[in-house]
């Protein structure tokens, strides 16, 4: 039987963590995602024995994740933009040491202390690295409370498939808003021991070392090449996106997360006026659907990229389109959410030449 509930995005995510058989959560309160830690503190340990620890800072949280993920268990943390900034050093270590884990960023407006309102200002930080060195997170961007739940399970699967940290990049609005969500069944806690995990060295195996230190340049290059080969593999297998009315569209909007939903509404308003607008929503931000966007670019007159930032993903869209058609950008910043009307107005102004 379906288990339906009306839940806040942050709570659905926390519930999904418990149901994924997650072994431990380490985190620090920050608006607008504190409900994750609160919900888990109340529910998790009693239900599955999951470890919940409120750390003294995000710096400590991410290093607890690093230590715990090294034991090969299902480990996660969540935070919001300033807290995620504090975690970047640790994320770089985790990526280099190839530890599977889940990181959640409930994006709020920046830069600086900024605002607690929703934003997509952390696209670059999440998708292009964020910390030092050449590394990639697998980045998934939900657009509904349902996906806030579903992507937790998917993230753990991907993390262990590639021994790579996975980030769910969502925003303050999705974290706070309530929607109907169908919950998945409780999964078993993990029982198998990963061959690389630091759990104590038995007599019959070599010691396991978790490190990101390789002082010899040729060795460090070898590690980098191995990471890059893995990222190419991820690009081959894990691209996810959603198309809405892209088939015979005259114009295309590209948007991710919450904004994509607003753009679908804007496309409906356009249809009412006789203008055919499709929406492509990248779900995986790394790996990014370059090929799909390039293919669609061949069929439309122009593309509008809409984001809640100053224009970050638009750089990837332009790379994908490679000059085939004009790519315009419309964005709001600082925690302001664009309306369908203003998106349509900008599409008309910037691309359709007042055609609609």
């Amino acid at each position: 039987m379906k288990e339906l509930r009306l839940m806040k995005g942050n709570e659905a995510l926390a519930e999904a963590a418990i149901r994924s058989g997650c072994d431990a959560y380490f985190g620090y309160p920050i608006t607008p995602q504190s409900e994750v830690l609160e919900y888990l503190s109340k529910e998790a340990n009693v239900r599955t024995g999951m470890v919940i620890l409120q750390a003294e800072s995000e710096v400590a949280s991410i290093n607890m994740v690093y230590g715990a993920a090294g034991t090969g268990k299902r480990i996660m943390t969540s935070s919001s933009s300033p807290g995620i900034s504090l975690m970047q050093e640790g994320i770089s270590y985790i990526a280099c040491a190839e530890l599977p884990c889940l990181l959640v960023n409930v994006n709020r407006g920046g830069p600086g202390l900024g605002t607690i309102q929703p934003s997509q200002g952390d696209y670059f930080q999440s998708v292009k690295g964020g910390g030092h060195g050449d590394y990639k997170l697998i980045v998934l961007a939900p657009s509904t409370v349902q996906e806030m739940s579903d992507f937790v399970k998917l993230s753990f699967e991907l993390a262990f498939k590639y021994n790579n940290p996975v980030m769910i990049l969502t925003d303050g609005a999705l974290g706070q808003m309530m929607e109907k969500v169908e919950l998945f069944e409780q999964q078993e806690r993990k029982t198998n021991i990963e061959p690389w995990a630091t759990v104590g060295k038995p007599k019959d195996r070599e010691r396991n070392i978790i490190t990101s230190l390789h002082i010899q340049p040729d060795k460090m290059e070898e590690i980098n090449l191995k990471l890059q080969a893995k990222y190419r593999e991820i690009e081959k297998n894990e691209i996810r996106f959603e198309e809405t009315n892209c088939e015979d569209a005259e114009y295309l909007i590209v948007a991710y997360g919450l904004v994509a939903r607003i753009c679908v509404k804007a496309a409906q308003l356009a249809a009412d006026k006789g203008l055919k607008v499709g929406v492509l929503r990248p779900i995986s931000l790394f790996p990014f659907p370059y090929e799909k966007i390039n293919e669609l670019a061949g069929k439309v007159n122009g593309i509008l990229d809409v984001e809640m930032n100053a224009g970050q993903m638009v750089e990837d869209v332009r790379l994908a389109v490679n000059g085939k058609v004009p790519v315009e950008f419309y964005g709001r910043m600082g925690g302001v959410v664009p309306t369908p009307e203003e998106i349509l107005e900008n599409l008309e102004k910037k691309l359709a030449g007042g055609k609609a």
Partner: protein
Amino acid sequence: MNEKRMIEEDQHFEDVIAEESICIQENIVYEKPDTLTDTPFHYCPGCGHGVAHRLIAEVISELNIQEETIGVAPVGCAVFAYNYLNIDMTEAAHGRASAVATGIKRVLPEKYVFTYQGDGDLAAIGTAETLHTCNRGENVLIIFINNATYGMTGGQMAPTTLPNMKSTTSPFGRDIATMGHPLKMTDLVAQLPGTYYVTRQAVHKPGNVRKAKKAIMNGFKYQKENKGTCFIEIVSNCPSNWKMTPRESNKWLEENMIPYYPLGDLKIPNVKEN
């Protein structure tokens, strides 16, 4: 002794004690513990790190807990500790070893988890993690090597550098008016209700080595009691950056470091020895 006689004696000696009969278990008074790898230490001659490593390895061997122990290495001279200790280890970011140890211990509460950290790592960049780990009373062992300098980066002023002590970033001596006071981390953590066993030891003399080993042994054993954090400071030397011979550095340690960082237990559990 004539030559013939010597040969006969040698012959006799070989007859009586053949190599195989010397190298028998009963005759072994000293050997490399199986918890040390064959990798030669990269530490400078006379440095206390090598002795401290060996003591940890001996304790793990003697307690027979190699299969249950996970170590956390710092950033500093001991960054390669995992090359020498034949156990599962994680190399932490600078200062974060106790947070990493917390993560491991929380998901593997039945295992032995310890960190090995220097003064810059534990008492400067990692102060918050150290204090909060001790304050939460995590059941881990923290081993703190205090040599009053940043060894690996070439002798900069550390949080534990003594007043007026010269370093590359306090070339005229540490001026406490502008550079602050040496931080007595061990005294600080001893105040926290989360710590169970807090002691300050040294490894510059055989007697001290024996006491330090006992302390490390206790630190591991107490983990099984789940009563809180064990914290062992080892006041150590850095002949290279102190710009002294090993012998001079040990003398200097005795005359300058120990008066400021007196050796002994700061907090001992109320348990009966058996």
